[in-house]
């Protein structure tokens, strides 16, 4: 389109300069393609406009009022899981329910993407290994979880496995201060008591993290100059943990911990990772990791044999070879299809309604829609949210992808 306009402009400019007769204009291929494209664009816009007109007309014809006035109305139902925003029955409005749903979707998507990536890489590496057992295990894993409908898997894990085998709250499985039962995982959460000391502690922690980066750069420079390498990650992590714990005690425990306590029905206090979230996260992770594993296998297979032989011949150990030679080259093949898997995972989280997790489709496109009847606005907002979410994910990952591609000089 843009090119067409430029061509159109160039044609007329050229016309002025060269003085060609304008009667030939229809024979100019650039002009013709510009016109055709303009017509097509017009048709596309007209179609969307007509669809909008038709919908609004038909809705009005059927007595359905479309307006956003319900946004500020109090939601007459309760959302049970809202870890980021406080839900207060009788105060929280519909638009806040939308935000809660969005945040819950993002939560399960982020958790799912992290877990699916780790698990997918692990399975993918097993799949490419020379060990017969490991390779066959990974093969069976991929073929089972890739070939089953996701909704079935979500319901299977939730109803047939977790709900069936996890005990009721009164007989919870105890892991220290953590309790696992059919309602989910109850965890202790920190409560900030002394604000100033807590900030000091946080400052020390951040400072030690920054220091570890400086240490990493120094170690890299040292290796470049002397060839001697250090286990940077191990040293940094242990130092951060030691500093964190010791300063925590030196400062006199700047925050307390809220422990979950068994009430009459459920645990009270502490934090909760509800079972629907866990089931959904688990199913999404397992399902998506099977696809990512195949991407990883494809990536590893794409690294040419010569690279591996060259790595061996310069005396790299096997872990070094995987880290320095295979993974960086394999990533170039792995990343692009894995972006699609991330997008799929985010969109697939909308199946949550089957197990009762309160993400955006459940609380907004389903419950709120049914209580207000504002289908046009609610569905449009849900679509736009998923669009933005997907475009943003691709945008970020495309930047990363560009960074790891071969830079030609």
């Amino acid at each position, binding site marked *: 389109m843009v090119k067409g306009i430029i061509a159109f402009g160039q044609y007329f400019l050229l016309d002025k300069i060269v003085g060609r007769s304008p009667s030939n204009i229809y024979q100019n291929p650039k002009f013709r393609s510009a016109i055709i494209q303009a017509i097509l664009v017009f048709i596309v816009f007209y179609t969307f406009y007509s669809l909008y007109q038709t919908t609004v007309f038909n809705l009005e014809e059927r007595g359905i009022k479309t307006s956003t006035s319900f946004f500020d109305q109090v939601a*007459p139902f309760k959302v049970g899981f809202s870890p980021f925003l406080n839900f207060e029955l009788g105060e929280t409005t519909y638009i806040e329910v939308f935000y809660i749903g969005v945040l819950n979707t993002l939560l399960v998507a982020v958790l799912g993407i992290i877990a699916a990536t780790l698990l997918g890489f692990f399975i993918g590496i097993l799949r490419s290994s020379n060990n017969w057992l490991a390779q066959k295990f990974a093969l069976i894993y991929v073929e089972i979880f890739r070939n089953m409908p996701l909704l079935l898997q979500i319901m299977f894990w939730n109803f047939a496995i977790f709900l069936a085998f996890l005990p009721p709250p009164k007989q919870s499985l105890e892991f220290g201060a953590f309790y696992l039962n059919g309602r989910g995982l109850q965890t202790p959460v920190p409560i900030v008591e002394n604000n100033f000391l807590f900030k000091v502690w946080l400052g020390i922690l951040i400072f030690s993290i920054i220091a570890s980066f400086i240490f990493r750069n120094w170690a890299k420079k040292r290796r470049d100059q002397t060839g001697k390498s250090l286990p940077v990650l191990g040293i940094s992590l242990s130092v951060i943990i030691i500093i964190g714990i010791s300063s925590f005690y030196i400062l006199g425990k700047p925050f307390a911990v809220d422990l979950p306590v068994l009430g009459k029905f459920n645990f009270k206090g502490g934090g909760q990772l509800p079972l629907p979230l866990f089931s959904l996260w688990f199913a999404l992770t397992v399902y998506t990791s099977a696809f990512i594993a195949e991407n990883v296998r494809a990536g590893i297979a794409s690294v040419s044999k010569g690279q591996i032989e060259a790595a061996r011949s310069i005396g790299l150990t096997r872990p070094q070879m995987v880290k320095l030679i295979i993974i960086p080259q394999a990533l170039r093949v792995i990343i692009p299809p894995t972006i699609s898997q991330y997008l799929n995972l985010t969109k697939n989280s909308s199946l949550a309604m089957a197990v009762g997790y309160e993400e955006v489709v459940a609380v907004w496109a389903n*419950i709120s829609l049914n209580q207000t009847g504002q289908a046009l606005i609610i569905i449009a907002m849900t679509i736009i949210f998923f669009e933005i979410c997907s475009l943003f994910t691709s945008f970020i990952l495309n930047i990363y992808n560009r960074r790891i591609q071969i830079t030609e000089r």
Partner: protein
Amino acid sequence: MKKISLLLGAFALIGFTYSSVATASTLEEVQARGELVCGVSGGVAGFSAPNDAGRMVGIDAAVCDAVAAAVLGDADAVKYVPLTAAERFTALSAGEVDVLSRNTTHTLTRDATLGVNFTYYNFIDGQGFMVAKADGLSSVMDLDGASICVQAGTTTELNMADYFRNKGLDYTPVGYSTSTATREGLEGGACDAITSDASQLAALRSETADPSAWTMLPEIISKEPLGPVVRQGDDQWMDIVTWTLHAMINAEELGIDSSNVDAMRADSPNPSVARIVGSEGETGPSLGLSQDWAYQVIKQVGNYGEVYEKHVEPLGIARAGSVNDLWTRGGIIYSPPLR
């Protein structure tokens, strides 16, 4: 160029369709189609659920059958469309179904904003709670802090929120999209209690592995008048569905049932009976139906009492003395005169 003009024509058509939205009445559409499309739940025993032969049966499905009998003279000319609670109003207002008979509660907001009209009630229900007998709970007040399974997007969810808020009780809702899933959640231990209309709870209890392990709490926290719903803007169709239901109730009141309707039609001294069975009066033609419309309903589907006895009694929901009994026997099932 030819292709382009074709395309343009096609898009112009799309653009103009909204100005020529179907003006045919629902009655004409149904008669032309020879089939009634009826939205049902499809998963609530006693209301609408497939029987062993795969036919949709229940008190809600019977409304579909009755309307088909009145309009088409054939109670079997029905296509049942199972709908979830969230889909139902959109399906109706978008014209996918002609009647929505899916244990739907009549409320002001639904009536005023969804482009639908509520006709009359075929079952008057109220919301209750079901818990495990082993928990030894005796009242909803004992449920403070409990997790409660509920079908998401229903009035049930709203009633529960209102009730708990009013009583200052805390709870965690566990919302599923189908009532079957709420039952699975309760049995699996995802929640301590389940809430729904009392009749639905009875139906769900009959589907559990051990029905005797569950008990209903005494409180009924809401009014749930359930009945068929039609699209707004077609008064004739609304009258037909409303009066089909009235005919079934009137028939019971006058003692007309599917077994004696033929005898009554042949010879009845009571003019009220004669008007229903079509041997007197003009009730059918006034509605745009045939003279024997109510006769067909009673003959093929039965009167209200017969339908209730056949589908709802087996769930263990007794009718005698309940609100769903006839007004002459102390209930509130009442119909205006069919004349």
